[in-house]
């Protein structure tokens, strides 16, 4: 357990989906998340690493309270998330998604998008909302004139800033960022990573950073959990896991994360974990 109190914790959560291929076909069970336990401490950044199909997106849906686990429980400030309403959850926990192109309503201006959560939660009068929106827009590094823009008038990086502003407006204590920079160019990725890093320092926000990009995780995360086939196979301080992992799969992931190395070629990975794919 971490010395600081956990703001979000998962206890033995599993999620099983039943799939049918057709009327006559037998039902198949897919164990997307298997017996996962995790703790997120206050002000901490927890990196969740894994490849497609490992269950990290299902886990993020459980963390957001969007789906209930088949067994086990998610706790928000020590209260079972299943006992909280959507609104109660939203005040504490907000998502930031991968694709800022599809996560924003194309017919809403930036001001409408960012102020919407305040209106929904009935927080503040018009003047207070305006002030709060302006402050938040400043905090994410968008110019004030962007307030009257529509998403299609903004670049990918600006859209992701709008998505982050919208997530921040209720002053949540936790952000769940699912591949927040995967859809962005590297020069824009750097800006968004710096922004997330500033937020965790200045606003004391805890972050769960879900990513397949080890360099992104390495830049932000204090602690890292590696997910494979629905399970957390390894967890610990970022420096340890990313330098000296104990699991073969993590070593394989690290070996595949390429850095700049002129003429060094592509490493030959052993096929010990996965067959040719």
């Amino acid at each position: 357990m971490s010395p600081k109190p956990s703001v979000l914790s998962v206890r033995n959560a599993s999620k099983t989906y039943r799939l049918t291929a057709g009327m006559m076909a037998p039902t198949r069970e897919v164990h997307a998340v298997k017996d996962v336990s995790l703790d997120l401490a206050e002000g901490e950044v927890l990196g969740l690493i894994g490849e497609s199909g490992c269950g990290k997106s299902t886990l993020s849906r459980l963390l957001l309270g969007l789906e209930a686990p088949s067994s086990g429980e998610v706790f928000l400030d020590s209260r079972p998330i299943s006992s909280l309403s959507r609104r109660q959850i939203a005040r504490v926990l907000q998502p930031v998604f991968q694709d800022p192109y599809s996560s924003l309503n194309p017919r809403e201006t930036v001001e409408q998008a960012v102020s919407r959560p305040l209106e929904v939660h009935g927080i503040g009068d018009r003047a207070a909302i305006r002030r709060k929106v302006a402050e938040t827009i400043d905090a994410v590094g968008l110019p004030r004139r962007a307030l009257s823009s529509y998403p299609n008038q903004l670049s990918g990086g600006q859209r992701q800033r709008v998505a982050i502003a919208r997530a921040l407006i209720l002053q949540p204590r936790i952000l769940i960022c699912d591949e927040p920079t995967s859809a962005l160019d590297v020069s824009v990725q750097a800006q968004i990573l710096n922004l997330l890093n500033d937020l965790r320092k200045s606003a004391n926000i805890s972050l769960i950073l879900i990513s397949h990009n080890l360099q992104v995780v390495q830049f932000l995360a204090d602690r890292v959990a590696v997910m494979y086939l629905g399970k957390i196979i390894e967890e610990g301080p970022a420096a340890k896991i990313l330098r000296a992992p104990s699991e073969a799969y993590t070593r394989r992931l690290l070996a595949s994360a390429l850095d700049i190395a002129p003429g060094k070629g592509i490493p030959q990975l052993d096929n010990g974990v996965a067959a040719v794919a």
Partner: protein
Amino acid sequence: MTTTTVSESQPVLSVRDLHVRLPHRAGIVHAVRGVSFDLQRGETVCIVGESGCGKSMSAMAILNLLPRGAKREAGAVSFLGEDVLNAGERRMSELRGDKIGMIFQEPLTALNPSLTVGEQLMEVFRRHRPARKGEARERALEMLGQVGIPNPSERMSQYPHQLSGGLRQRVVIAMALMCEPIMIIADEPTTALDVTIQAQILRLLIDLKDRFGLALLLITHDLAVASRVADRIVVMYAGEVVEEAETSAFFAAPRHPYARGLIGCLPSAQAHGSGAPLQIIPGTVPSLIGEMRGCAFRERCPEAEPVCRETIALRDLGGRRARCVHAGLAEALA
């Protein structure tokens, strides 16, 4: 089919002053602005740059596969000395899939969902070769083996949707190799794949390239990948080539401020745990609509000067080129 004679020094691909213009609601987008480069026999050239820089458009223009409405103009595009710019689509469709192999980002779009793996591979072969079915089948099996697909004869009768993303991309690579190409153009071939699969596929591509002595034009946004596989790097920004150099020389000392910025903003460039922010490139890419005057990067450049408002040519720096007024300084002082 025309036979082409190849001299040793002749480049496989030579592109001179290539332009692409696309109609857009707001005007004509000048997406590729005078791109020139050569690709030699057995060489790997990586074109790197961020989205919208014109790297894919350049590849599509070379292949004559531009979207409808797009206009291509060039001084010259030649493949093995043959003028393919004015050769017409009929000749290009002979070359594509035959002497020029193609690999794109998303293997599902490159494969026909209603044909089995075997049918597609055999079809490519028989389109370009007067081959019997049995011969085509043999060739397909051989190529599936070459790209490391286990149980090739079983895979032959499967459909693309029955394969994982990595296996599909292996099939696409097998297809590109069916007719013994001389050059492969690969546009972000591993971007849609998981990291461990990406490493496997890249490794395969490079192994095959060496085994068959192919020239490879690799379009990628990933500088790490480019650094590891390229003999030469071509950096594009806002439709122009801003730098071209041999790979180790490029990474040792990039001459264009944009190239330096791009390398600097990678998270791996930052020492872990230092807590310092990542380097950024301020501002955004200029509009590509209409003509541009001066250096396209000057609004974002920390070294910009009044002279940067004038048109800047790609400067020859002895074995490398850069489009920057400051670029010759290191050489001049050396």
